[in-house]
């Protein structure tokens, strides 16, 4: 039994993985090698950069500097990575994602990465459930690959508002794990939310979640009430992506190793600290996240 301290929130828990430092972030250049539109509004863009393809860990992301005078980099989780290539899966919804979606093959982009912490892995032979809402699938190809290699029996629950919005299932299926589809409108698979579906499933040693805040909150509430360990990868608007600007904080339980643990000001009443999603996360333990209204 060894202690996994790569994910700071995990430091006091038992893990099978030996400690292995993540590669330090670097300022690098990647070449666009493929771009594929996925209706109704998603893109999967492939890039070539051998270091990141080799070193990226599940839930880590890159911060991309796009041409066009944008003030902030675009942070995107790495979806797949193989050989010298990695892919990003995203929805075209703003100026920066539109710019990336319409870059030509052969163009280069500057990026910083790998950034962020990573998911912890359970013991070999145990069970895990991956719960993804929509584009929340993005960190799970890398995680599923690790879980497969670690001989962790994994079920993937993938949800979206309707069948058309299920994205990335094709790639995720390549690891051979069973994928359960859930749709809010019943147009495919289970008619209901991913958390509704997970409630009916056999208890796992660990659950992993990524998706919209409402889904993550419900998943954490379920996991905590059942006493099941759960890690979620969160999203916020990042300013710097480096942990310097404090623009992307999330409330975590006081005492969490990921929070600031600043002392309280005189007369201050609070049972949480802030943590930076970009640098202390993006992975947080369900037990640590404080959902404030």
């Amino acid at each position, binding site marked *: 039994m060894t202690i996994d301290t790569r994910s700071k929130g995990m430091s006091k828990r038992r893990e099978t993985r030996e400690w292995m430092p993540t590669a330090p972030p670097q300022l690098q250049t990647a070449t666009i090698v493929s771009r594929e539109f996925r209706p109704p509004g998603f893109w999967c863009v492939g890039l070539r950069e051998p270091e990141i393809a080799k070193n990226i860990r599940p839930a880590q992301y890159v911060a991309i500097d796009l041409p066009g005078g944008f003030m902030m980099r675009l942070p995107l989780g790495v979806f797949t990575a193989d050989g010298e290539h990695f892919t990003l899966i995203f929805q075209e919804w703003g100026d920066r994602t539109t710019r990336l979606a319409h870059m030509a093959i052969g163009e280069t982009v500057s990026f910083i990465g790998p950034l962020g912490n990573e998911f912890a892995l359970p013991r070999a032979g145990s069970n895990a459930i991956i719960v993804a809402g929509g584009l929340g699938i993005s960190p799970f190809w890398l995680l599923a690959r690790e879980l497969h290699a670690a001989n962790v029996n994994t079920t993937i629950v993938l949800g979206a508002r309707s069948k058309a919005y299920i994205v990335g299932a094709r790639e995720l299926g390549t690891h051979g794990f069973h994928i359960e589809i859930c749709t809010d409108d019943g147009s495919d698979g289970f008619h209901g939310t991913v958390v509704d579906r997970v409630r009916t499933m056999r208890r796992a040693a660990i659950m992993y979640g990524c998706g919209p805040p409402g889904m993550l909150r419900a998943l954490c509430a379920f996991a905590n009430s059942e006493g099941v360990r759960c890690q979620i990868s969160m999203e916020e*608007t990042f300013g710097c992506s480096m942990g310097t600007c404090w623009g992307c904080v999330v409330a975590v339980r006081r005492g969490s190793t990921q929070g600031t643990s*600043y002392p309280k000001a005189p007369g201050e009443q609070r049972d949480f600290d802030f943590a930076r999603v970009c640098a202390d996360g993006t992975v947080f333990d369900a037990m640590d996240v404080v959902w404030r209204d």
Partner: protein
Amino acid sequence: MARLATDGTNDMRIAIGSAVLRNPVIAASGCYNRGAEYGRITDVSRYGAITLKSITRNPRLGNDMPRIAAAPGGMLNAIGLQGPGIEHFLAHDAPKLADVPTAVIASVAGFTVEEFADVAAAMDGLPNVVAIELDVSCPNVDREGQCFAADTQSIAAVVRAVKLRVKLPVIAKLMPNVADLKPIARAAQEAGADALCVINAVRGMEIDVMRARPILANSTGGLTGPAIRPIAVHAVWEVAQAVTIPIIGTGGIEKGRDALEFLFAGATAVGIGTANFRDPRVHIHVLEAIEAEMKRRTLTSVGALTGLANPDFAGQKVAAASSLIRDEIR
């Protein structure tokens, strides 16, 4: 014109009071946290100095989310001075300042004159700290009508109180949201400020039209980035006619050409903030562009660029030629 260097190399040094910086490019407060993060991906030593995120007396949780919004040509932020407070800072962060590979300017924020003075005094003497910057103008914290930088008497009181307590040079950071910056700048100089940082973020707001509510949890925020550059250049231009102390021109600098605008308007040094996020090597590009401009104009001292475009520039043309530097060169 100043041609201080005798060995043919450019003299990039500038002086802020008794502090001599290796070059005039400074990381602005709030973008470099406490100095550690960017060292992983860029050469921080190429900065003349980095300015720390402002520290207050008490710990501050900061504002709720969202704290950041993209804006046309810039970024709107309202972090709310999140920070550990001076005691925690001294115990946990201050020792690490010794690892910062360049000079450090400690930024101090406060809500009373005494708080400014106490926190500034605690910063005096920390490793690598060469100057104290007073964040008398942070527009993000909800204290409307109490902003020190909006009133000549308030800014003078803060500067005077801090000067009595610290040996290091003191920089007052001016807020652009005032009718006339010149009397405020003059008041800061007369109270003993060794330099001025011009300008802080410009107050701004964005509204989510779908929800009919402000985007930022704090409603208002500070606008930074190139959107504010012409405002900042003009502010430096005006202040440079009103004071003789050095000015750190800050606001929307993204490249060397932008920095030159500030120097020509009358700044002795330039601050880079938001642009670090997009390009962590921005300071190196800016520095090299300044050196190229000196070469083009056959100047050997960076101070000779100061005020070139400003016929009413009131400061000394040769900002680099403080007696301290002259002594060193001799």
